[in-house]
């Protein structure tokens, strides 16, 4: 499959009477954007705001982060099976608005997490402090159940992102990148001497507020399967995940997965990037057995030499990660696993809830229990009401001077397990 990604760089976002993109500036009509968000009657109200890198702004609680896109040629549309009708994406031409994101924020349940600081020390931990953010804070109709409201906000975010992306349809991209995958046979013929490598992506799929969707299908109901990595780049996977801010994959991360990006960069040079395999992280132990069996079987059937396995979330998924690693290695396929750590505030505790000697090549996104102090910001988009209730926060979180003492877990993307984060080792 051949996908052309046209990058349109957004240098500023401003509110205006009508929406358009001109000379790299995105002008947004609040009224028009609100009308798109409010198409679903479950949402009572929506307030738009803009947060720019370097500003003294804190966005919380963050639900999802989405990169606006428009499909200009080829099969399918934006978020197939979710917004656009089901059709296989990953080929043709897609434009992406680079340097910006649509951020959905606001209360879904009575405790919630996800902080994006646009400046200060917190900004160093989240990749979304570097994007111009069009933030939408939604308010539900009275009496709505959390799962109905989560779905309503999820869809509203996608609709607004698609609305903004559509503004770029007639523009000329600032840069175009081409990503091309081979069939199995073509790959064998073209790169007979290169190691055959696949990316195994584990998708959060435990239940309410812990879900991921593939072409609109709840990932907990899938059997592991193979995708062209260009499908992922083209919006085949979206997030419905509201918890574990530091190591969940917002939709933006699926659209810009660095494992996919880096494997493409090496494709045909040091390795043959055969395909992407997706699997899930269910609660029921027999599901874990089935999914890890299937993942390892696919790796064997594809005659892989190596697999990179990324996790999403903490605890329960540690078991899936190790099961995948053990079983794939047992098929004679070398694995590298990407995870993060909950090693306690002092970093001295066991990092994962599971381990095995087959996991001998491990990349960590960092220790999510590490404590950071986030100074008071001049402006809060969303609400601090729940900051004491978010993961990694405690009764002492909100200090007298307005600063927050929190664990890294609360910061959106801080220890992301695809490497879409800012932490590194020295």
């Amino acid at each position, binding site marked *: 499959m051949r996908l052309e990604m046209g990058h349109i760089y957004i240098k500023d976002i401003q509110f205006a009477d009508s929406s358009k993109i001109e000379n790299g500036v995105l002008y947004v009509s609040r009224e028009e954007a609100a009308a798109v968000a409010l198409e679903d009657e479950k949402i009572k109200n929506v307030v738009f705001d803009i947060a720019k890198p370097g500003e003294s702004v804190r966005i919380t609680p963050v639900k999802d982060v989405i990169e606006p896109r428009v499909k200009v040629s080829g099969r399918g549309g934006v978020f197939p099976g979710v917004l656009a009708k089901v059709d296989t994406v990953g080929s043709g031409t897609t434009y992406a608005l680079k340097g910006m994101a649509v951020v959905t924020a606001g209360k879904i*349940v*009575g*405790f919630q997490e996800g902080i994006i600081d646009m400046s200060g020390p917190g900004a160093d931990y989240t990749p979304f402090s570097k994007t111009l953010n069009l933030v939408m804070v939604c308010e539900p109709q009275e009496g709505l159940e*959390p*799962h109905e409201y989560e779905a309503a906000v999820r869809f509203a975010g996608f609709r607004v992102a698609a609305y903004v992306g559509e503004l770029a349809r007639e523009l000329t991209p600032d840069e175009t990148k081409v990503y091309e995958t081979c069939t199995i046979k073509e790959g064998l013929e073209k790169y007979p001497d290169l190691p055959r490598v696949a990316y195994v992506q584990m998708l*959060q799929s*435990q*239940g*309410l*507020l*812990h879900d991921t969707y593939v072409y609109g299908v709840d990932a*907990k109901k899938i059997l592991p399967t193979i995708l062209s990595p260009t499908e992922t780049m083209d919006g085949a996977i979206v997030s419905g995940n509201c*918890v*574990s801010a530091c190591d*969940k994959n917002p939709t933006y991360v699926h659209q810009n997965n660095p494992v996919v990006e880096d494997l493409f960069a090496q494709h045909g040079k040091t390795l043959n990037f055969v395909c992407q395999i997706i699997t899930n992280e*269910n*609660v*029921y*132990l*027999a*599901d*874990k057995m089935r999914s890890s069996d299937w993942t390892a079987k696919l790796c064997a059937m594809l005659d892989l030499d190596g697999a990179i396995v990324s996790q999403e*979330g*903490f*605890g*329960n*998924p*540690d*078991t899936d990660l190790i099961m995948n690693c053990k079983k794939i290695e047992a098929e004679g396929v070398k694995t590298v696993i990407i995870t993060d750590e*909950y*090693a*306690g505030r002092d970093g001295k*505790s*066991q990092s994962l*809830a*599971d381990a095995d000697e087959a996991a001998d090549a491990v990349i960590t996104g960092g220790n999510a*229990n590490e404590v950071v102090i986030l100074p008071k910001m001049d402006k809060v988009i969303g609400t601090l009401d729940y900051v*004491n*209730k978010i*993961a*990694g*926060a*405690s*009764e002492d979180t909100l200090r007298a001077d307005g600063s927050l003492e929190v664990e890294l*877990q609360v910061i959106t993307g801080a220890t992301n397990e695809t490497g879409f984060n800012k932490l590194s080792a020295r």
Partner: protein
Amino acid sequence: MSGDIMIVTNNPLAHEQLQDKYNVVYYELPLNEILKVMRDMIHAGCHLLTHPLSGSVKPGETPYKSVLMLKGPKTQGSAGEKGAGADSESVKLIESALSACEKFADKSAGYAEKTLKDLQLIDLDLIKGAIASAYI
């Protein structure tokens, strides 16, 4: 449902909503204590059918946990007898869950009633998903 499968929980909402249809073992206990009850049941021969660290709401943030368990032969015969028959995978999972609990400070003490209800709802939803997978 199969009489050999039970739901062990400290979640009052799961107890309330599931007890008429399923075999629910409910204890009003804190999270680490309900995990210890589960551990004792495993040593008495029960098998875990769901992961005791289900959900990415961390220990300390949520006080609730529900698991599906399969009654082992020991449990059905002489309940409470420890030792022989303990399923090693279940032991490993519950011990690592207990260790994980120690890493997280308990933040649930000051929760408002509404927050507790939301946490109960999430735990209930996760176990309902497992019940669907188990076809019980």
